[in-house]
């Protein structure tokens, strides 16, 4: 243990004296104290706080990730290249302990810096909020939409298989009704092909609402015991047609909410009445939030709720609700401070994971190659995520058809590589979304334990078996 602690201490000392580390530290301080004054939000206090949380904390995390990669690589690789490791491994200390000590040293210093950054950002935010002249309305909006932690609920996905089968049956019946003998429907193979085509069509057109038509979304798993005072938010983004930016403007429509309750004059039957909001103009291609104008006990029944939208716009042909952009329901779960601490915990897991990766790579490669390999790993992770998520109607449509090589490659990479952005949760904070413990647990288990730890163990295995004197630039 004494040896382990000595190596940890040595690594921290070495880190503090590294010029690049000092440079990154200055950038970290700038990101906390200078960046807020260079960013412009949408002019509202809410926008300003959102930008501050998302970018200042995000940039600080990015700097810490870079710094941890640099330090882990340099501390481990340089020791081998400069033959300083010779002086250590000829002492009675296991190489695995040396590697772990170096890893722990790099992690500890970065966790300390993360703590400093987190405290600084929180104090700075509190100070600005307490000294700024904010109207009561804006302050309420901030408290309800940003400085809070709301669980996000997604609508239940339609059963496209059932819908496709239903549509296929209808078409076959229709063809039969007209006395048509459609070749495609004669055998199973043809029917399967037709089923797949219909399914694709349904997925591709899901979320599209033609003029004077409506679409309803079902929500399940909402908290059952909500008070009437609890506020439920609806988050949505409406697009005109597809999402070509030149088509975007404002559209006319009407939101409707299902009020579900037990009818008192009956035998306890559950009834649902639709409560429609007044017709209004809604800005397109922008994320909006509104409070559901119903008492929660009426809106949420048995953990379920229903939201609909009626297209009343005459200027455009179709409105589109992209699957990944709502509508969502948000219900407050806990306070901002708790959520902030959880976000910092996720960042800490990110630093632990990235340092683990960099240490593993540096344990068997020279400094430039180790840095290149780690950066390439993270880049491929980020690109893989981009390849998968940036494609239109991403998940289901692409998964079913697998039309692009990019998608296949991205999917494979996502299963092997940890995307760095998994650990960037400042967007959650900025949107007042809950960073839930199951999410944190899953991230830790999936990314740290299942993906990074095996890589580290492989690196450590190579490190303990390397002929360390083969690679030194000296001696």
């Amino acid at each position, binding site marked *: 243990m004494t040896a382990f602690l000595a190596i940890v201490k*040595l690594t921290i000392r070495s880190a503090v004296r590294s010029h690049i580390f000092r440079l990154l530290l200055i950038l970290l301080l700038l990101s906390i104290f200078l960046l807020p004054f260079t960013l412009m939000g949408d002019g509202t206090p809410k926008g300003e706080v959102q930008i501050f949380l998302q970018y200042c904390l995000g940039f600080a995390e990015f700097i810490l990730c870079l710094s941890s990669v640099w330090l882990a690589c340099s501390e481990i690789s340089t020791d081998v290249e400069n033959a300083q490791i*010779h002086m250590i491994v000829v002492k009675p*200390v296991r190489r695995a302990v040396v590697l772990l000590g170096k890893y722990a040293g790099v992690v500890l210093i970065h966790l300390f810096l993360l703590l400093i950054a987190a405290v600084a950002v929180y104090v700075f935010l509190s100070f600005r909020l307490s000294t700024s002249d904010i109207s009561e309305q804006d302050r309420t909006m901030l408290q309800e939409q940003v400085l809070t932690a709301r669980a996000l609920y997604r609508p239940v996905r339609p059963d496209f298989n059932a819908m496709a089968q239903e549509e296929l049956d209808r078409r076959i019946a229709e063809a039969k009704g007209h006395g048509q003998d459609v070749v495609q429907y004669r055998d199973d193979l043809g029917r399967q092909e037709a089923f797949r085509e219909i399914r694709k069509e349904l997925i591709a057109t899901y979320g599209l609402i033609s003029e004077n038509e409506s679409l309803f979304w079902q929500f399940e798993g909402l908290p059952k015991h909500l008070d009437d005072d609890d506020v439920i938010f609806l988050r949505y983004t409406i697009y005109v047609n597809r999402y070509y930016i030149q088509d975007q403007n404002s559209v006319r429509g009407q939101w409707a909410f299902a009020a579900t309750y037990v009818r008192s004059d009956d035998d306890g039957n559950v009834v649902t009445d639709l409560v429609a909001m007044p017709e209004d103009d809604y800005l397109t291609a922008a994320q909006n939030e509104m409070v559901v104008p119903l008492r929660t006990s009426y809106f949420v029944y048995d953990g379920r709720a229903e939201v609909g939208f009626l297209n009343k716009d005459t200027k455009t042909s179709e409105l589109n609700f992209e699957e990944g952009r709502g509508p969502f329901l948000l219900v407050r779960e806990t306070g901002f401070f708790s959520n902030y601490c959880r976000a910092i915990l996720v960042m800490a897991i990110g630093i632990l994971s990235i340092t683990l990766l960099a240490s593993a790579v540096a344990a068997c490669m020279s400094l430039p190659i180790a840095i290149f390999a780690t950066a390439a790993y993270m880049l491929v992770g980020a690109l893989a995520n981009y390849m998968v998520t940036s494609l239109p109607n991403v998940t289901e449509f692409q998964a079913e058809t697998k039309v692009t090589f990019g998608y296949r490659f991205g999917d494979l990479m996502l299963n092997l590589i940890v995307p760095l952005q998994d650990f960037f949760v400042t967007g959650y904070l900025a949107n007042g979304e809950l960073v839930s413990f199951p999410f944190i647990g899953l991230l830790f288990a999936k990314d740290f334990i299942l993906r990074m730890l095996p890589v580290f163990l492989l690196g450590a295995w190579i490190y303990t078996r390397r002929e360390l004197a083969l690679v030194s630039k000296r001696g």
Partner: protein
Amino acid sequence: MAEALKQPVQSAPDRPVVVSAVGLTKVFRDFWNRPKAKAVNDIDFEVREGEVVGLLGPNGSGKSTTVKMLLGLLYPTGGRLTVFGKSPRDVENKKLIGYLPEETYLYKYLTAFETLDFFASLFGLSKEERTRRCDQLLNMVGLAHARNRPVGEFSKGMARRIGLAQAMINDPAFLILDEPTSGLDPLGCREVKDLIKLLKKRGKTVIVTSHLLSDVEEVCDRIIVLYGGRIRANGGMEDLLTIRTNDTITVPRLPEDALARIREIVRESVPDGEMSVRHPHMSLEDFFVDIVNEAKKESLETSGSRSGGAIAEYLTGDKEKDAKAVLDSLTREEETPAQTLERKMEADAAKAAADAAKRKQDELFASLQASDPVSGEEKSRQEREEIEAKMSEANRKLKDLLKSPGGKKD
């Protein structure tokens, strides 16, 4: 003869084996695993407890590769290598080993004390023990005044001294010193050599590699000469270096006519006339050390490392100030009755040899003086003083000879 020199020599067959290499081979390979160079080629050697072995050879002869294999930094391609009967990679074994690399790879931002403290921590020593040992070692290597200076600011010699101190931090039973005197001033060299001699007295096993052959000659019992990855010579210093076909007689300076008579006597025995007469001279190192010691008496200051202080107490194993005396007493205490008897016999033999040498010298002087009836009147006073000085020098050497346990110096 050449083949005989390459055979493993067991200088102390009764002592336990510390290092054993059988058919040791190291082949360096390129990226595609093709053989690139055979650095060590099927060598056999043994090092036994208490031996000081010099590993010699020109650059690229395989010395460093052998040392690195001994330390587990490189792995043998073929053959068998054990240190204390175990693999060189055995972690527990490393508690017994001290290593001074050819270049001292230190962390530049650590101070001298922090450096030693770090290496001491790797042995799991307690804080108090670490502090005690570090202070003593810094004092021993003459860097107590630079305790809190970063080692990055050190000269090569000072860094070397720190390197030596870290190699001694665990009081190792087996020490590997790669070019221990490289970068050191003559005083430092002398101290290192003295230290190796003391370690030998304490029964420590030492492997020394050096290009400075005089250093090796002075401290080693045995040398292994490598060339092209093979052992070219392996044997005791006395066996390998003694020119048994020649004799040397050292006497105080003689008058020319006395020399002429000696030449005549010698010519009778050596008819071919292969004979030379020259004046012995002290080594440059001895001369330098004398000058510096004189300067030290005059209290002249230097900003670099100072010559070392007392040997660290934990290395002597006692708290007395006079480390050498303590070491001697410790050595005696550890001796078994058989060893004591052996040492007594060696001392007796040495005394007898010295007496014989003295008798020979007296006889030679007597014969010279008898053949030179006018010697007393013709010598100037200066010459007489010179002869007296030489005589006292000869006496001193004789006393040293008597003190040395082996009594083999002449």
